[in-house]
C-alpha cells in the first residue's frame, strides 16, 4: 500500500526516513541541550510552508516567541511574515493549559481552525514532567498525542534527554518513546577531541529507515545532514573508536605475538587455522 509521507525538506534526512515521516504520525525528536532540536523542528515547519504549502503550528512552553522569531531570522526564516499570511502560528503557553481536562475547547482548536495546519511542533514534551506527576505523564502524553492525531496533524514532539554522552543511554525514562510512532535522535559525539553532532532514526513505525548514525551540521541555512560515521564504532556508548581493518588487526596481532613470543605459538597456530586463507590473501 502506498503511504503518504510528510517530507522534512531536508533531503538527506528524508532519505534516511525512507521519504519522510508517515502522515499523521507523532514523532519524538530527542536530544540533549544544544543539539539542534529547535532548529530542526522550525526547519520542518518552515519547509512545510515554503516547499510543500503545509501550514504549521509551533507550541513553546519555555522559550519566548520573541527569541524564536529572532533565532529563525538568523536562518533567513521570517516567521512573523508567515503568521501574517496565516501559514504559521507561534503559541506560547503552559503545559497545564494545553493539557486542560475539564471540558471546553483546547487552546489549539482556534489556531487549527484558523490556518488548517498539517504540521505541528511541541517544544517540549519533557516540560510536562514539571506539571504532571510521573505516574500520570504517560497517560497525559497519550491524550495529547491522540488529540493531535485526531486533528490529522503530523507532529514533532521535542524531548530533552539529560544524558549527553555515555553508555547508559535512554530516550525517555517514563515510557513516552513507546507512545511515539517514530524517534529521531540528535546526539553530540566526541571524536578525536572535537565535538560533532550525530543524527539517527531509532524507530519509525510501519516503515523501513536508515539504521546508520549520520553526522549533521547547523549551517546558516539550517540543518545539513552529511555522511555516516562509517569509520567509527561505539558512538552510542560515548567512547567512539576508529574501526580496525583486517590488515590493521593482523598487524596488532603480530605485534602482540612478538611480545608474547613462544607462549603465543600454540594460539597463533589455532588462529591461522581459524581464519580462512582466502580472506587473508584478499586483504593482506
Amino acid at each position: 500500500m502506498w503511504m503518504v509521507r510528510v517530507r522534512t525538506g531536508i533531503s538527506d534526512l528524508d532519505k534516511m526516513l525512507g521519504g519522510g515521516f508517515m502522515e499523521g504520525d507523532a514523532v519524538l525528536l530527542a536530544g540533549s541541550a544544544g543539539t539542534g532540536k529547535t532548529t530542526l523542528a522550525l526547519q520542518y515547519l518552515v519547509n512545510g510552508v515554503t516547499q510543500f504549502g503545509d501550514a504549521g503550528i509551533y507550541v513553546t512552553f519555555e522559550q519566548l516567541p520573541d527569541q524564536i522569531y529572532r533565532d529563525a531570522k538568523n536562518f533567513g526564516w521570517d516567521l512573523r511574515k508567515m503568521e501574517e499570511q496565516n501559514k504559521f502560528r507561534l503559541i506560547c503557553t503552559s503545559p497545564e493549559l494545553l493539557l486542560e481536562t475539564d471540558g471546553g475547547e483546547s487552546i489549539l482548536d482556534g489556531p487549527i481552525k484558523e490556518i488548517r495546519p498539517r504540521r505541528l511542533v511541541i517544544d517540549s514534551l519533557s516540560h510536562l514532567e514539571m506539571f504532571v506527576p510521573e505516574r500520570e505523564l504517560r497517560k497525559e502524553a497519550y491524550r495529547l498525542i491522540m488529540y493531535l492525531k485526531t486533528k490529522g496533524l503530523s507532529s514533532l514532539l521535542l524531548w530533552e534527554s539529560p544524558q549527553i554522552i555515555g553508555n547508559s543511554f535512554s530516550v525517555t525514562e517514563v515510557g513516552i518513546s513507546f507512545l511515539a510512532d517514530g524517534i529521531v535522535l540528535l546526539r553530540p559525539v566526541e571524536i578525536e577531541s572535537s565535538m560533532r553532532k550525530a543524527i539517527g532514526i531509532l524507530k519509525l513505525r510501519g516503515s523501513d529507515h536508515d539504521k546508520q548514525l549520520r553526522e549533521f551540521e547547523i549551517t546558516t541555512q539550517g540543518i545539513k545532514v552529511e555522511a555516516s560515521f562509517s569509520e567509527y564504532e561505539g558512538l552510542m556508548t560515548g567512547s567512539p573508536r576508529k574501526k580496525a581493518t583486517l590488515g590493521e588487526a593482523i598487524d596488532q596481532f603480530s605485534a602482540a605475538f612478538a611480545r608474547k613470543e613462544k607462549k603465543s605459538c600454540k594460539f597463533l597456530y589455532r588462529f591461522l587455522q581459524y581464519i580462512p586463507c582466502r580472506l587473508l590473501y584478499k586483504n593482506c
Partner: protein
Amino acid sequence: MSEASDILNRLLSSEVKGDLLVLFHKNPGIIDTIDGVARRIGRTGNSIGNDVKDLVDLGVLERKQVGKHEAIFLDRKRDGEVQKIIGNYLNSMKKKEG
C-alpha cells in the same frame, strides 16, 4: 479628560502593566494562565492580578475560560485600536506644544 489620556494614564499607572504590555507586544502568541504570564516577567500570579484585570477592562488583554483554568491573551484588534488612539493623542499634543 479625553478617552486617550484616560487610557494612557491607566497604562502608565504601574510598572507591572508596562512589563505586561512589552511582553505581549513582543510575544503576541502568548496564551497562558495568570501564573504562567507572571512567570514570564519574573513575578507571581498574585502580584499581577490587579494589573491584568485593568488591562482586560481596557480591552488590551482578553480572558477565556479553558476548563478550570483562565487563559489570558492579547486582543490584537483592540490593542491596535488602543495604539491608534494613543498615537493620535500624542500627535495632537505635539502639535499643541509646537
